């Protein structure tokens, strides 16, 4: 393979209002290589790639593709240049089959010949080693199958340059291995691939070269064989970072939450939690692992009084010695709060449940406590002080306390939410994906906060997606699969593969 550049970005700059998302970025992609774009959340990786796939348009700089200066105005322009992007959020139509989704939007003859389409799809899947049934409907597919459809979709359109945005975020370790094999086989067939990620071990495993972005700026490109986790982290963060979580041994462990035979159906009537039973202890961090959408959200919401429960019990042990037990399964979130049970909850959907996007930080601080003050009017003094404290303690970057939280970056939104929930000195602390969107330093700050809460005697439950982190943060890990508890393991002794296997229900062997 000769070293020709298929894509060259020169001094590309993209601004959104006052925010500079990409600042003078230079980047090259060679033919037949896998290039990782590494950077923390908010470093501008996705923005940069969206300019290649025709979603954004650069303010300054030039893009050369196949040796020619081009203007990419729309995704169609990108396809004409044989560039295909697989987005983090799939763009598929649930009620159509894989094949129908793949040809969607393509010009074609008046009469569709699905047989021909299927043959062509099968050729592609055979060539690169995909596992895909073209006649399967999207809604019956797993996340990794949907991703396969997205990849085949761009290949079908003749893409020679593939861009994958955080493709492993939703996959189990086993599925990730499979994906990487396919990517390698595509590279060996002459395709050029860009993969956006912030997971270091994956970068080292899959890519030929790594380009690093930091806060919108281009830092540099290195050959993967010369890089280490430490050197890449330093490029990414700009300073040496210790990647250790200070996990203390659990002390004064006592039963705090007990779930017995819990069954929950969601609004559509699906049985999302099936016969869940477990105990969560004070002074301990219980990790909850699982492929996303396997009941994690519903489980936390059920405990928090936000789900209608079909059957089962959720018990809250006030203090071990006098055994005052509250039945949380009969209460709404408001009831739990009114009883004075300090149960804090950082939900997965931050702006859809935990915060109000159009309100400022102060108004968001009082969302769970506005009713505590007396009288008809709201008291904004206490929440204002709390807001100032959270902003100061967690280094929230915001123009002012009066800025609507929707205008903050994802990481700062998360800090506001976590800061508020921890401020009430919770007895039970439930967090879903607490570091999603945070940079490495902030992530470790949050891990330390969780450990602090654990040492202070809170019962911490943490839904996570990064198994490496869960294994080094938690004391025990509960694994959910298809709405059932497929296992509870000791986080100090379990391996990643073991947990990965439980995530798929323990059926698959790989």
């Amino acid at each position: 393979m000769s070293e020709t550049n298929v894509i060259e970005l020169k001094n590309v700059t993209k601004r959104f209002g006052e925010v500079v998302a990409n600042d003078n970025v230079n980047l090259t992609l060679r033919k037949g290589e896998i290039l990782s774009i590494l950077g923390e959340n908010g470093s501008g990786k996705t923005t940069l790639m969206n300019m290649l796939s025709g979603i954004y348009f650069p303010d300054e700089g030039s893009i050369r593709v196949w040796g020619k200066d081009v203007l990419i105005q729309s995704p169609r322009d990108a396809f004409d240049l044989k560039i295909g992007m697989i987005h983090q959020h799939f763009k598929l139509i649930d009620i159509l089959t894989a094949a129908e989704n793949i040809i969607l939007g393509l010009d074609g003859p008046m009469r569709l010949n699905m047989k021909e389409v299927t043959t062509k799809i099968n050729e592609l899947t055979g060539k690169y080693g995909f596992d895909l049934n073209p006649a399967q409907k999207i809604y019956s597919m797993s996340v990794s199958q949907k991703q396969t459809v997205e990849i085949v979709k761009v290949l079908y359109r003749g893409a020679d340059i593939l861009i994958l945005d955080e493709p492993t975020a939703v996959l189990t370790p086993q599925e990730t291995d499979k994906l990487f094999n396919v990517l390698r086989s595509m590279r060996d067939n002459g395709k050029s691939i860009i993969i956006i990620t912030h997971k270091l071990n994956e970068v080292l495993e899959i890519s030929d070269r790594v380009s690093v972005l930091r806060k919108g700026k281009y830092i540099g490109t290195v050959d993967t064989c010369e890089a280490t986790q430490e050197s890449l982290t330093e490029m990414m963060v700009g300073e040496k970072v210790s990647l250790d979580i200070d996990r203390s041994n659990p002390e004064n462990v006592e039963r705090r939450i007990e779930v017995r035979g819990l069954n929950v159906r969601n609004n559509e009537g699906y049985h999302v939690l099936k016969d869940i039973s477990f105990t969560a202890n004070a002074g301990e961090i219980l990790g909850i692992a699982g492929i996303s959408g396997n009941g994690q959200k519903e489980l936390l919401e059920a405990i928090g009084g936000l789900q209608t429960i079909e059957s089962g019990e959720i018990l809250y042990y006030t203090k071990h010695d006098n055994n005052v037990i509250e039945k949380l399964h009969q209460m709404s979130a408001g009831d739990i709060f009114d009883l004075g049970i300090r149960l804090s909850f950082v939900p997965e959907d931050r702006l859809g449940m935990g915060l109000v996007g159009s309100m400022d930080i102060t108004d968001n601080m009082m969302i769970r406590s506005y009713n505590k003050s007396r009288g008809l009017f709201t008291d904004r003094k206490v929440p204002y002080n709390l807001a100032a404290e959270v902003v100061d303690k967690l280094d929230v970057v915001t123009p002012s306390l009066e800025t609507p939280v929707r205008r903050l970056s994802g990481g700062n939104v998360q800090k506001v939410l976590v800061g508020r929930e921890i401020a009430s000195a919770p007895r039970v602390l439930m967090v879903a994906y607490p570091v999603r969107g945070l940079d490495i330093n902030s992530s470790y700050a949050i891990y330390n906060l969780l450990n602090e809460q654990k040492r202070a005697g809170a019962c911490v439950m943490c839904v996570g997606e990064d198994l490496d982190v869960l294994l080094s943060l938690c004391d025990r890990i509960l694994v959910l699969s298809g709405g059932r508890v497929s296992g509870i393991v000791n986080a100090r002794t379990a391996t990643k593969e073991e947990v990965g296997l439980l995530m798929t229900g323990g059926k698959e062997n790989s």
Partner: protein
Amino acid sequence: MDKHSKKSAGRTVIHMEKRDSISRSKAWMIRGAAVLLSLLVCAIVIIAITKQNPLEVYAGIVSGAVGTRRRIWVTVRETVVLLIIAVGLVPAFRMKFWNIGAEGQILMGGAASAAVMIYAANKLPLPLAILVILAASCAAGVLWGVIPAFFKAYFNTNETLFTLMMNYVATQIINYLICIWENPKGSNTVGVINSKTRAGWFPKIFGSEYCLSVFIVILVTVLVTIYMNYSKHGYELAVVGESTDTARYAGINVKKVILRTMCLSGAICGLAGALIVAGASHTISTSTAGGRGFTAIIVAWMSKFNPAAMVAVSVFLVFMQQGSIQIATQFGLNENASDIITGILLFFLIGCEFFVNYKLTVYREEA
């Protein structure tokens, strides 16, 4: 590849970009330019369609709206009525409850006022009669507002359709009432109620019978502004509007908030009915609301729920509307002529906000 490079050679593309910030003076210059431009376009339209001197037509509009003491008071009266309806819509809209049933709520409030005037006002001292009228109209508005709210809260029905259809029901009820209250017989109208005794009519204060309306509207506007910005209720309904999930998470009783807010919204719109019937027309008909329930939606949205802006927008719309009546008679034009002028003005005023927020940049691709 060849095909593509040919297609893109020398293309010029225009991209809109969000402005980082804009100085206040520049923003007002853009708005000023928009007004001038719109007057220019209006002038061309006027000349093209009516062959009239546009300056005279503009003068006619001004004279129609504020030309005499009487006209000024009518403009004020119409403005405050439009304003109070818009204020009534604000709590519902902030809760993202699309109440387009103000029309019906006004009619029901008006009907309640008329009923009190007909059946009770002659037996009561005037201040008490006025209080009963205000209370009855609020109650009728609450009833009309809370029915769709109940179905929304408990069965998640679509409030837009529901409130719209309630308007038609209200119109039919008015038709029925006209049959009962017909005066004189056979006229198919209610006529001026209590034209001799003036029982239940808003009294003259400071030399005008419209002053009481003005006071009521100012009071309601101030109270609603405080309610929205400083009360717990206002906070709760804003959270519910943003996301019911967040509201449940916050421990807010969503059903209760929906019902309570629509009671308030309906009550204020019903009150507007009293201002129209007891405060101005002293009669009731199916056109008592006169589309103001819909115009008020424009007022509320254009002002982004800001009370000061709502005053300005109400004044503008009523000014143009009163002016149109004048030019219709003065120049023998159809009243719609002024609608065209209003439309052109609004188009430019709203459209120029785009240039306040965005700028256009032209890119050229190398051949």
